[in-house]
């Protein structure tokens, strides 16, 4: 973990000095993470991809902006979140029929691939997935950043532009909602896995 963040800090320093290879490596390290984050709040894969591309194009074109970055995690997550917001609004305003059609197709695709790729989930953690589905988009992104990306509350506060306490509260509320159902699942197949690990 530590080694990883050290590597990223070194990459950032190199990229800020104009090293194209380092910049590309940053892109390749962050693409999947940003994609997962963008999708965590319910955006379509295609739209998140487009926004990530635009985000990095802007970074390439405006090196000044890039030079001010100190924490890549929070900077990139924050930008993606803001840009996703604005492109969502743009999409709503336009109400472009073709665009909507494409979006719907992509959503259907991702549902289908999800089903194929996750027999495990289907069998064993479908119950938690349905509970996660019930969370609000903001609760989902909070859960994602805290437990998948392992970000600190301070980093999350920076990304959401709110106070540390507000983030804590929303993570706790989301956990409470999930927890009611986790504890009901005592006899669930997943608890069998617990034995396997021991």
């Amino acid at each position, binding site marked *: 973990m530590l080694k990883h963040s050290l590597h990223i800090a070194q990459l950032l320093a190199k990229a800020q*000095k104009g090293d194209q290879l380092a910049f590309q490596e940053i892109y390749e390290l962050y693409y999947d993470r940003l994609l*997962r984050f963008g999708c965590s709040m319910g955006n379509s894969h295609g739209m998140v991809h487009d926004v990530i591309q635009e985000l990095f*194009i802007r970074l*390439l074109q405006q090196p000044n902006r890039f030079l001010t970055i100190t924490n890549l995690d929070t900077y990139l997550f924050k930008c993606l979140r803001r840009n996703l917001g604005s492109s969502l609004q743009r999409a709503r305003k336009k109400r472009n029929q073709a665009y909507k059609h494409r979006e719907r197709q992509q959503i259907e695709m991702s549902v289908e691939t999800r089903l194929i790729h996750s027999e*495990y989930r289907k069998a064993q*953690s479908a119950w938690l997935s349905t509970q996660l589905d019930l969370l609000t988009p903001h609760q989902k992104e909070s859960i*994602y950043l805290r437990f998948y990306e*392992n970000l600190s509350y301070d980093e999350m506060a920076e990304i959401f532009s709110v106070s540390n306490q507000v983030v804590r509260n929303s993570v706790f509320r989301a956990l409470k909602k999930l927890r009611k159902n986790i504890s009901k699942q005592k006899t669930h197949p997943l608890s069998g896995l617990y034995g396997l690990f021991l």
Partner: protein
Amino acid sequence: MGKQYQPNSLEELAADPAFQAWVLNPTPDNRAYWLDFLDKHPEKADLVEEAKNLILGIHHYFGKEPTDPHQLAAYYEEISQRSEQTLSQQSSSLRLQRIPYRQLAVASIVLLLATALGWWWTNQSDSIHTYSTAYGEWQTVILPDSSRVKLNANSELSISRNWKEESNRTVWLTGEAYFEILRKPTSGATFTVIADEVSVEVLGTSFNVNSRGEKTEVFLEEGKIRLAAGNEETFMVPGDFIAYSADINQFVEKRQHATKPYSSWKDGVLVVQESPIREIFNKIEDIYGIEFQVKDSSVLETTTTVRLPMDKLEIALPILEKTLGRKIQQKEKRLIVQ
């Protein structure tokens, strides 16, 4: 991993990186740690189980298949092209408006200074970038032109930092690598691999270069390449296999219609067909960084065919024992063949 501590809430435990590491990637070490923890704190068993289910569920919900590295390189190519396009569009639309001469003069001075500074910088920083792999490890390197190089264990690939895809693309190799080179039809730029005394020049193709040992071997899978070594030069077509010996400055082996085994390592499998055991041992030594000791050296000259995994010695050894019909004893880095 921290000292014994007391997680008091589900939130605290589930967000603990050490706990996540155990749930997601259990190893003997972290398993022992958490078993010990449960022994000492049996009252936390429910909490541990709950947190474990939570982490597994969250990872299955938000997880995605990682994007293929080749695809990622293509995505990157797209943004670097698009960033240049939009920049030139912006500047051409500027030209249509009234030209602000004063600002332009200032801008061009700044630009000149920046270019000079840029020159100075590139000449300052070290100009070679090296990728290397340890024993039992291999790596895919994506070059700035999106060409792919799969580097075998214990190998090194160097490229110049100011690598220009328009002009000639050159890399240096020690060890073994498999190349998938993208063709540049517009500029016709060639791609050159220099390995020991041999240089391989290509337009766009897939091939394997192995410069371990006294010979440098090249196997061509697709496309066409020009091979230059010493004073000799030859062209290769797909399926050709050529070995060059630097000692005698000659091509020592040419074979046509050779098949995949030369590059099978890139899929994580070592395939050696009808070769002396000596050669097979050499390859295994190169991959795993170990050393064979043979009591009865007559075994070395018999020929055989093997298929071995390249990252799991504990699986490769029993297969090898069966093929040889002999027991192999492992003492740290030495393998003793009975």
